[in-house]
């Protein structure tokens, strides 16, 4: 692991004359310089001069300061850090896929088109929704696509609407997305059990009344374009009144968007299309285990109901059946359909993060219908096991039945002046990546733990034992927590100065 405490920036290592890339011999005449003099590249200030050996050592050393899924449990709630099967990496690197050009005629990329079509069929059956686009590059891009579908639908109905409702427990991407799609956001309050409140809610601290779903629907009516609802929500709880919520919204012509970030709790168990969802996104990098890559690339396919099909981004993949003789197995050919007059247009330059789609299909084929359901159930069992083992040591601010993740609060530890951040940092000293912290916002000092199905009993026990030891330590030696981490390559970072006087790149001294 951390063999060295410091690895300089590569720029500080640069020595003139070193090369990490040799070029092939030029077999055509050298380029004539046709550039206007002022557009000729003048030079570089930072590009380092290093050999391949040094570049590889630099990035190998840096890598050792990262924690990965193969190091152990990575319990970031809502992020779904599953095992990343190596098969999926291998097939994504097949030259038949990587060499294929996005502008090549359809007849030459039949394998890619069939892959897109097949993955869409899987996602349709999993969500119970008849329309899919694989174009959005990430969950947030999927949200934006979904909300633009809602907008296009209302515009086609002749009534431009103004408002999107979003629960206060929602991901920050939801309100940011609604704003990017030109909507005003109105917040829905949560009930003490973490689900959306139909009734008005009075804040116990300041006495302010926050309007519940019923009031908002009555007052805003046809101004409501839709609602963005995470289900299971960010507390890991199923919105058990989802059908009533969608019926109420539909009664004023509003549509229901489901944030599918937590779909890994529902695959093979329940289908959004069966409980009133009109449009939703899936995070292939969560539910379908494509690697997170230090922050991407992901993929955020959008699935939608019949009434939104005309608005899907172009192009849409189409399967044609090729005529064959009697008794022969029917053959198919695939093509992109660009001629869709009501489409919202394109949301990615080409067809999305195709390499990620390859991995997701490999995940589907490996798991199959039976494996997908089993993965869901095991993720739920694992989260509930952690909940059972830790619920006496850490407060469950919300006591509703947990699905794939469990959210604790730091209220018991706060009495000893130890807070969520300290607990998270202490976990690092014990060799664990901390859970998601301070989210969702409706839980004070939230510690959101999602083990996923990738952990076995040994790994879960070791993690729980550590969490229990830390809870003891809070009482006996709170200072150890305030100082944590002490065993990582660095101690806590000065984030205030980083933001106040930003240094965002290296410059020559």
């Amino acid at each position, binding site marked *: 692991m951390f063999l060295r405490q410091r690895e300089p920036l590569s720029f500080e290592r640069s020595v003139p004359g070193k090369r990490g890339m040799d070029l092939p011999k*030029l077999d*055509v*005449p050298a380029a004539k310089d*046709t550039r*206007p003099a*002022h557009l000729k*590249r003048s030079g*570089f200030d930072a*590009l380092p*001069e290093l050999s391949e050996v040094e570049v590889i050592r630099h990035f190998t050393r840096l*890598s050792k*300061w*990262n924690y990965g899924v193969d190091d152990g449990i*990575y319990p970031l709630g809502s992020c779904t850090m599953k095992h990343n099967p190596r098969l999926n*990496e291998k097939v994504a690197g097949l*030259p*038949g896929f990587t060499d294929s*050009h*996005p502008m090549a*005629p359809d*007849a*030459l990329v*039949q*394998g890619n088109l*069939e892959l897109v079509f097949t993955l869409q069929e*899987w996602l349709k059956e999993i969500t119970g929704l008849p329309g899919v686009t694989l174009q959005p590059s990430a969950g947030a891009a999927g949200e934006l696509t979904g909300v*633009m579908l809602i907008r296009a639908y209302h515009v086609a109905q002749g009534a431009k609407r103004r408002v999107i409702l979003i629960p206060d427990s929602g991901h920050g*991407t939801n309100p*940011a997305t609604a*704003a*990017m799609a030109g909507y005003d*956001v109105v917040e829905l309050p949560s009930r003490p059990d973490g689900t959306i409140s139909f009734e008005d809610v009075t804040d116990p601290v300041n006495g302010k009344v926050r309007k519940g779903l019923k009031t908002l629907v009555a007052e805003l009516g046809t101004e409501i374009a839709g609602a963005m609802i995470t289900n299971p929500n960010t507390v890991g709880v199923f919105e058990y009144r989802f059908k009533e919520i969608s019926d109420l919204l539909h009664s004023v012509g509003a549509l229901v968007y489901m944030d599918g970030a937590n779909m890994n709790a529902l695959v093979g168990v329940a289908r959004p299309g*069966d409980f009133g969802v009109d449009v939703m996104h899936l995070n292939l990098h969560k539910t379908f285990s494509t*690697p997170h*890559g*230090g*922050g991407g690339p992901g993929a955020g396919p959008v699935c939608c109901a019949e009434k939104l099909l005309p608005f899907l981004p172009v192009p849409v993949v189409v399967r044609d059946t090729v005529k064959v003789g009697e008794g022969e197995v029917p053959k198919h050919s695939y093509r992109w359909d660009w001629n869709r007059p009501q489409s919202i*247009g394109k949301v990615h*330059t*080409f067809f999305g993060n195709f390499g990620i789609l390859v991995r997701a299909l490999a995940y589907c*084929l490996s798991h*199959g*219908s039976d494996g997908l359901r089993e993965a869901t159930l095991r993720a*739920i*069992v694992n989260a*509930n*096991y952690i909940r059972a083992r830790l619920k006496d040591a850490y407060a469950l601010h919300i006591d509703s*039945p947990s*699905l794939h993740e469990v959210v604790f609060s730091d209220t018991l530890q706060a009495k000893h002046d130890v807070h969520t951040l300290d607990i998270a940092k202490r976990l690092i000293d014990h060799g664990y990546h901390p859970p998601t912290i301070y*989210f969702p916002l409706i839980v004070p000092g939230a510690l959101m733990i999602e083990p996923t199905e*990738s*952990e076995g*009993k040994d*790994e879960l026990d070791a993690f729980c034992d550590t969490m229990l030891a830390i809870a003891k330590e809070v009482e006996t030696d709170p200072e150890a927590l305030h100082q944590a981490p002490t065993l*990582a390559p*660095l101690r806590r*970072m000065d984030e205030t*100065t980083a933001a106040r006087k930003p*240094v965002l*790149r290296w410059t020559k001294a």
Partner: protein
Amino acid sequence: MRYLPSSPAEDRALLDTIGVARAEDLLSGIPEPLRLKRGLDLPTQGSEQEVAWQMMDLANRNTRFCAQFLGAGAYDHFVPSAIDAMVGRQEWFTAYTPYQPEISQGTLQHLFEYQTLICDLTGLDVTNASLYDGGTACVETALMAVRVQKKRHTVLVSQGLHPLYRQVLRTNFAPHDGLKLVEVGLKDGVTDLADLQAKLNGDVAAVMVGYPNFLGAVEDLTALAGPVHAAGALLVSVTQEALAFGWLEAPGKAGADMACGEAMSFGNKPTFGGPFLGFLAVKDAHKREIPGRVVGQTKDLDGRTGYVLTLTAREQHIRRDKATSNICSNQGLVTLRANLFLQLAGPEGLKGLAEQNAAKAQHLRQRLLDLPDMEPVFDQPFFNEFVLRYKGDMAALQEACLAESLLPGLDLGRFYPEYQGCILWCATELHTRRMIESLVEILARVPATV
């Protein structure tokens, strides 16, 4: 199932501790009527071998080529072996966004280096930890320009911008009733200065031009900057082939205020269009309006240098509907490929590679012009792509090339009615003289139009 670690006895122990008889009992929070009463109507699980074969079968159903003379936003370059080897380390590809800096210094320092290099290539001060791709980078840039340029609501877009980037822009501008996207025409393959002058007014926040543009032509940013700045607008350069930065002056030094585009050329294959790498670089004065993750340098409690995600007050998880963008995850691992590529190349490698691209494209153009059916359309400086008019039968040309496993350039008629019968050709360091000669020979044999 090989990816699920618990044994039956361990499963039993987990359920006993929880206090339920079966895993299904934990679904009590989902109302019974909303549950799926049947198995998913999909194939059952597959072994590694079976899945590998199925996927290989799909990959094999794509046509392979000896050479592709097609660029148009997705460029085929050589990828050094060190890149795949390094990116295959689990510490890089399985990690998440570096929310916990003490345990993510690898990713954070890498991103700081990546940011430094994007700033170096573009000649601007600040960049972020990436955007999805060229088209979506244009959207984020245009929306940022409108934020920065308060009370200006129009973005002028040259028709020299990648036609698909313009489509993505249109999609994302449609919901904003107050914003206008206006196209500026082309003349001789570059932005028409007269049309630009006519459309510049006090409402124009920014002007976006390709550098080089979709037709391969090098727009004179410096000449465009004059009128654009005089109108109080920002000049945005959009680069779809980032390798051009080894050949052309940094946009920030040539007059651009913002630079965005596509950097897939640094260490990636065309991969049917993604994952690619969107970038956006801006001036220091605008840094607090930039979308997406940004990494900054700081100190730890002991005064040791380290890196953190910073300027988070712009972001969706803090600002919600007031954020600069909804972007959350980006193209993390693709930035690693770009960083590795650029550090391996170094200044000499990058310049040398760019010169080879220019040389190959010039040679290809020269040889194609030796054919009687090919003729120039306009005369502009270019990097590794250029346009020629083909007087023969386009379908016959396409067929002849494919029969010999060569993928020809792009038929521009699909995107530009005025360039009907014209082809956008691309050559990179991968194209040997021999491949170019094969292409010329095949084209020489294409039957004349009937």
